């Protein structure tokens, strides 16, 4: 096959870096509100009917949304194999905790209302709460760690070795900056869940969703700004030293990397990327205002803008780094040294260009069919067909 030469290797790498962002953002925009709704479940709904209303706002769609997570795993595997290998084995126990949540959540959704009885349902409600809140927090913690660099290095034959004992590896993830990043992520997704519930519910439940959602929006904006200040003054960045071969073989050991004073020097080199953090903060504030004002659809859009801004600000700030190594900067994963081969990136791009529009089209159709508020009448009258 020579067709893949049509798009140069370095351009394909940048495209796939962008698609990695699209996947993460797609996941946060869709499954994000499922997690937020789970985290809000105990706060917005008291009676069983109220809880079922809240659960059924995401009932028909969480399954499709969760595929963004699975596709994220598959796409990282296909397009960024070293990233897939290093990150998931490195964050091993944290990853297990996330998996545990994503295993319990489908079961909780499906099984909760299949039996009567307070203790059965209450137990599953707890499961939904934890499996919504914990991954939302952990994803942020992971990003916090990646920003600071992760302690790993490659051997000559590219085995990944992690520094430190297993417990240190796990506890070490929970440093103050990463926890702050975790709070940003959790509050952002709770805000998104609140905005979603505002659209899909009425009455008391909606009122509570707006109250808690607006608090979450403020927390998200405040912690995000705080993390930005911390990043400016307290955390060092990374940069590639010497010639940057953007279309060379994907071998992380072929580059030299050094620490810099701050990641934020990127804003001096590429001032236009400031649009991302501005969007993040502005979106968060507008979501707060929208929730207070009782706007529904617009608020959900603002919330999406905020998420788009926050997530893309991380990627744009770090470019071309994807996962720097704190203990052996030379081993850092960047856009130029950790992708799949030229041919694989090309084939995967063709497949994505064919299927992504299809996916977006039928997902939009499904959301349209399911459009409208979930009411007490819906869940009581259809108790054999809804959750």
């Amino acid at each position, binding site marked *: 096959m020579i067709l893949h030469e049509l798009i140069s290797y370095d351009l394909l790498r940048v495209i796939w870096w962008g698609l990695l962002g699209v996947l993460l953002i797609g996941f946060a925009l869709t499954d994000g509100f499922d997690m937020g709704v789970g985290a809000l479940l105990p706060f917005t709904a008291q009676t069983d009917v109220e809880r079922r209303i809240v659960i059924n706002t995401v*009932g*028909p*769609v*969480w*399954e*499709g949304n*969760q*595929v963004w*997570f*699975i*596709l994220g*795993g*598959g*796409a990282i*595997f*296909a397009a960024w*194999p*070293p990233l*897939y*290998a*290093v*990150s*998931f*084995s490195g964050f*091993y*126990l944290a990853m*297990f905790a996330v998996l*545990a949540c*994503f*295993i319990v959540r*489908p*079961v909780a959704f*499906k*099984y909760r209302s*299949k039996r009567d009885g307070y203790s059965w349902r209450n137990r599953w409600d707890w499961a939904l709460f934890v499996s919504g809140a914990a991954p939302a927090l952990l994803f942020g913690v992971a990003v916090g760690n990646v920003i600071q660099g992760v302690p790993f290095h490659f051997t000559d*034959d*590219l*085995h990944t*070795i*992690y520094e430190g004992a*297993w417990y240190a590896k796990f506890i070490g993830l929970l440093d103050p900056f990463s926890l702050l990043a975790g709070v940003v992520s959790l509050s952002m997704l709770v805000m998104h869940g609140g905005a979603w519930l505002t659209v899909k519910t009425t009455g008391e439940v909606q009122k509570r969703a707006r109250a808690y959602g607006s608090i979450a929006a403020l927390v998200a904006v405040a912690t995000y700004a705080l993390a930005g200040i911390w990043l400016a003054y307290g955390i060092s960045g990374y940069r590639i030293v010497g010639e940057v071969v953007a279309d060379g*073989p994907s*071998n992380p050991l072929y580059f030299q990397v050094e620490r810099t004073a701050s990641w934020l020097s990127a804003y001096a080199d590429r001032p236009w990327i400031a649009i991302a953090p501005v969007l993040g903060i502005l979106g968060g504030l507008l979501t707060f205002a929208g929730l207070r004002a009782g706007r529904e659809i617009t608020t959900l859009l603002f919330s999406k803008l905020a998420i788009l801004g926050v997530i893309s600000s991380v990627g744009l700030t770090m470019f071309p780094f994807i996962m720097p190594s704190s203990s052996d900067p030379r081993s850092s994963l960047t856009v130029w040294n950790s992708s*799949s*081969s030229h*041919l*694989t990136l090309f*084939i*995967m791009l063709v*497949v*994505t260009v064919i*299927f992504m529009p299809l*996916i977006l089209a039928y*997902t939009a159709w*499904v959301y349209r*069919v*399911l459009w409208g508020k979930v009411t007490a009448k819906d869940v009581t009258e259809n108790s*054999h*067909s*809804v959750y």
Partner: protein
Amino acid sequence: MEFGIVELSRLQFAMTAMYHFLFVPLTLGLSILVAIMETVYVMTNRPIWRQMTKFWGMLFGINFALGVATGITMEFQFGMNWSYYSHYVGDIFGAPLAIEGLMAFFLEATFVGLFFFGWDKLSKVQHLVVAWLVAIGSNFSALWILIANGWMQNPVGAEFNPMTMRMEMTDFFAVLFNEVAQAKFVHTVSAGYVTASVFVIGVSAWYLLRGRHAELARRSITVASAFGLASAFSVVLLGDESGYDTSLNQKMKMAAIEAMWETEPAPAPFTAFGFPDQAARETHYAIHVPYVMGLIGTRSLTTQIPGISDLVAQAETRIRSGLIAYDALMTVRAERDATPPEVMQTFEDHSADLGFAFLLKKYIDDPRQASDAQIQAAAADTVPTVWPLFWAFRIMVVLGFGFIGTMAYFFWRASFRQMQYPRWALHVAVWMIPAPWIAAEMGWFVAEFGRQPWTVDGVLPTAMSVSALSMTEVALTLAGFVLFYTVLFIIEMGLMLKYIRKGPFQDVAETEAWVARHHNRLAGRRNADAIAQPAE
């Protein structure tokens, strides 16, 4: 065998994968059976078929939830526990996994919600389309995962790149149309169809034995036995095709399954029964069926199938050739672009055997320093443990023929005996329910255990594929998975049994309206009530 991180990681993978496959076959088959039932409903408008669709759809949903939940583990644990594998073959292996997400998971997961929630929001035909999309999505996911697995068995369309120290794709279509993958795909989905058919017949038989829901049960048996009979033939035929491919591409696996220690004159006999003894390289109390093995394995009377001893000797030759490649690779790695062309040439001549040199890594850090004894030990390692393969394969095959017999019997009674079934047959059907699961797990065991000591046949040894994790970490997650999966399994079985006992939900108003509408036409028929009356 010492028990280290490799064995523990293998145990975890085997446990999570086999557990996942408790739910997958039923999803594959039941999604199609439900879509068929709904098709009949849309064509005939009879409420009983809608009731059937909803009832089996409900059981499908309970099963589907766990299939999805346990599948998530599969998508991520290559990176978690097999990070060197992920690095080494991710360029090829990752693609089908990602395409599976794009093409299959989104389809099934997006529409499965609509299947359950959309009955009042969609027209009949729209809902039917949704049901079929769920079924197609599920089956597509099997296609891509088997393309990925097929590549592990027969790694075509890829070559080693010394600059990146990994395998890279050279021909996507070779990976896609890998004959091993295609045969495995049809074999596996057919096994899923058989599983669902046995399940539907078994549950229906239980209703008939109890005198409950006879209308639903009889119709369900009719649909499932027809579908199951075709699938049972398919599963055995494509199993044979897989066997043929194996004898071409994975000769050691074939020899181990057949406990064929020495090369026999063609056509080789088939060992129907016996007790393989690995140390002595012979099979005690063996019962041979002449010619059969040669015919299945080579489809000829003259081609020889190599025995284990000859294959070990071949492996030793390949290890020695691999060492030449390894030595050249060290130069390439140090010199990069400045590598002398003759060294590059040497590497390319021997790179196909590089994986065999890696077999020595288990014994010594630098394979070039290996002694003759170590090389012989590594060559002997290419033989998987024979007796479990020998038996698992035979159990699978016997069950496979059992399914053909059962399905044929029920199909015959459904078609030519007015859907009447003797009680003994119904009892057999109920007891048959676990059999397809046993067969499917045996099949996966043969495929994966038979490939040992490789993760990718001839390319990457299992021992090299693992992540650099501590025993504690893997032990913790393994314990977590076991605990988790056990609890979920108990809950799942509890709900499944509850909903089977409860029986179908019957929409009384709709049924009565339909009977009233068709009153005149029904009155003219002898067994009018048998056509449309509600079950209870």
